[in-house]
């Protein structure tokens, strides 16, 4: 093997090795950080059992918001058409959080209730995030899901 070929071979091997390491790391990082969006009825049917953290999406049940008197602990119930899931969160809720608002909470299950580390409530009450609407529609095929259809609105804000 002449020196030029040898050098080229080394370069090719190095590039391949770097590519392998890079894709390995990427797949690893992706697997660790993929969050699935599930609705209460999907969680109740056991679909969440495989995930440590996931995102819970649905509507805040009317009148379910309970604030603790002496701390920032809040409990509320997230519902979809035929499921309900109690959620516990400690901290400051987003500006748009209120009854009948669609929310997405990130967190994990603790026995029968969901402990949220982050709660997002976006946009106005006629708007439901498209992905949440889809997830809810998928959870109960054929049932109509309430919510606005103007998906453009959501991302216009920034």
């Amino acid at each position, binding site marked *: 093997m002449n020196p030029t070929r040898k050098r080229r071979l080394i370069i090719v091997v190095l590039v391949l090795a770097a590519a392998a390491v890079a894709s390995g790391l990427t797949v690893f990082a992706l697997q660790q950080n993929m969050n699935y969006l599930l609705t209460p009825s999907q969680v109740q049917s056991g679909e969440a059992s495989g995930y440590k953290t996931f995102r819970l999406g649905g509507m805040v049940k009317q009148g379910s918001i309970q604030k603790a008197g002496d701390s920032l602990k809040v409990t509320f119930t997230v519902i979809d058409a035929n499921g309900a899931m109690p959620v516990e969160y400690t901290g400051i809720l987003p500006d748009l959080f209120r009854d009948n608002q669609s929310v997405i909470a990130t967190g994990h299950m603790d026995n029968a209730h969901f402990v949220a580390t982050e709660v997002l409530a976006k946009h106005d009450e006629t708007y439901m995030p*498209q992905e949440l609407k889809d997830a809810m529609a998928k959870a109960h095929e054929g049932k109509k899901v309430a919510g606005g259809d103007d998906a453009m609105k959501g991302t216009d804000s920034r």
Partner: protein
Amino acid sequence: MTPELGQLALVLALLLALAQSIVPLLGAWRGNRAMVAVARPAAAGQAAFVLVAFALLVWAFLRFDFSVAYVADNSNLALPWYYRIAAVWGAHEGSMLLWVFILNVWTLAVAALSRNLPEVFVARVLAVLGLIAVGFLAFILFTSNPFARLLPMPLDGGDLNPVLQDPGMTFHPPVIYMGYVGFSVAFAFSIAALLGGELEQAWVRWARSWTNVAWAFLTAGIVAGSWWAYAELGWGGWWFWDPVENASFMPWLVGTALIHAQAVTEKRGSLRAWTILLSIFAFSLSLLGTFLVRSGVLTSVHAFASDPRRGLFILCFLLVVVGGSLLLYALRAPKVAGGKAFAPVSRESAILVGNLMFTVAAAMVLLGTLFPLIGDAFNLGRISVGPPYFGFLFTLLMVPVVLLLPFGPFLRWGRGEGGVLRAIALRAGIGAVACALVAAVFVHGQLKAIAGVAAAVWCAVGTLLYVYKRFREMPRGRRYPAEMGGMLLAHFGLGVFLVGVLLSESLSVTRDVRMAPGDVQTVGAYAFRFDGVKQTSGPNWRGSQGTVSVIRNGETLAVMHPQKRTYTREQVQTESAIDPGFTRDLYVALGDPMDASNPAGAWAMRLYYKPFIRWLWAGGLFMMLGGFLAAADRRFRVRRKSESSEAAALPLATARESRA
């Protein structure tokens, strides 16, 4: 009547853009000078009509013309005039018009400042810019007309999204568009070079200052956006790896690679094909960014359903631009490729490694940002990719860049010497370790903070060593040409940025607390006393304003007024209060009253202590200044008359090498 005039102006602009793109391209191909000469006047005409359309939309906002649907949606009678102007780019249709407007600003600048380049080459550049304008004008006219009427005319309009009612937000979109659109010049330049089948170093030199200016604008835009997220969103964070942020960050990463690759191409003639490829990528990502942010593609592919024509148009446009330019690249790149070989230890190699890291980082961000779409397409369920994915991989990819940074300026073109590098590594390394040891005492063993200090000192000392070397070795007046000064400033800025990021990330204190009037909470060395909430109001909002006094060692440092505003359409918006400082920010955001019926009682509050956070934006500003300064270098202005440039380019290039 005026809205119709605006639309008419856009139609005329579209026709002129067609003339600006097709006629000169044909002329350049056929060797017809008359057709080539159409480029400049057509560009000027297009710019004039786009300016008219833009001015008419501003005018419609200023005089509350709610018969225009876009105006009615995004403004109302109570909105102050400066936010009514900002509302022009507050939503999709107006942003697209702003995009075209800025594209015309750049096109005019190119037309005016390129008199010394070969006429055919300039005609091709202007023609490519014209083609981009055709795409955008058609998009506006066929799918997102800002002048669409709303009849009957409502008495009052809606409102500009309250999060956009902030001075930072007024400037952020135009500045970031200056960056996005600026890359179109580098793109047009590359396509013109591919079409012509030749790439002269003199042309690359001309293109460099344009790319640097675009990059500097994009940097400024990202800094402004990050600052706005920090000050306005009330979460105290400065970067969330949110799709919208990623959209602007990807072109920045590729752009950073591009300005370095262009330097190699201009000075050495190497990496030509790579430079061209990077400019195609930088612009494609800018396009993708524009559409991702403004068109809701990312919420879901199904968002297209809300206006399928828009989605389809965007897909086709991206396909034509990216696919077409890559096809042209595949066909023609071998013709323009070439250049000198370089040794493994050389400035070229160092820049190439950095380039690789930046492009891989951009690809990584792209994958993470589009992954929800991929998951959706393959029915994997509703997935989002969490910030740790980006944080982990990005840190990993940037470590080599930070490590290599001090060596860059010291390395010679072609072949570097190991001895000098070892000396630099030793000095910068000693500095970094010493400062890290001192820092370790203050930061209570926080590894991230120690690493931050070490990395920052490594970059800063490395850069300053080079400043000193130039000072010692070069005669006065020739020590720091603008191009080099810009580079040093930007590299130094990275050090400042690292201090800001790693120290604020590791040492910040956040407390979510419940506070009744008179309560005191301590965060770090600071005591925050809550003095109650009173009602207040602004031109188009009413709100609650809290008063928080910050006390340290019995002395009142600041009185802060966080607000919770309710805008005319009942949108609620948190206005946080910030007490800025050189080494720390104090930050207070108002949550909700614990008991909604008793706003005078206890409130949920968020208190932050953020050390050195200002440094990260300062670092960004250093980089921006570096970009502008480098672009101002006299060397980038083409001096000779075009006809002789072919002959002169080569000897000039060799002369540069001996100097460098």
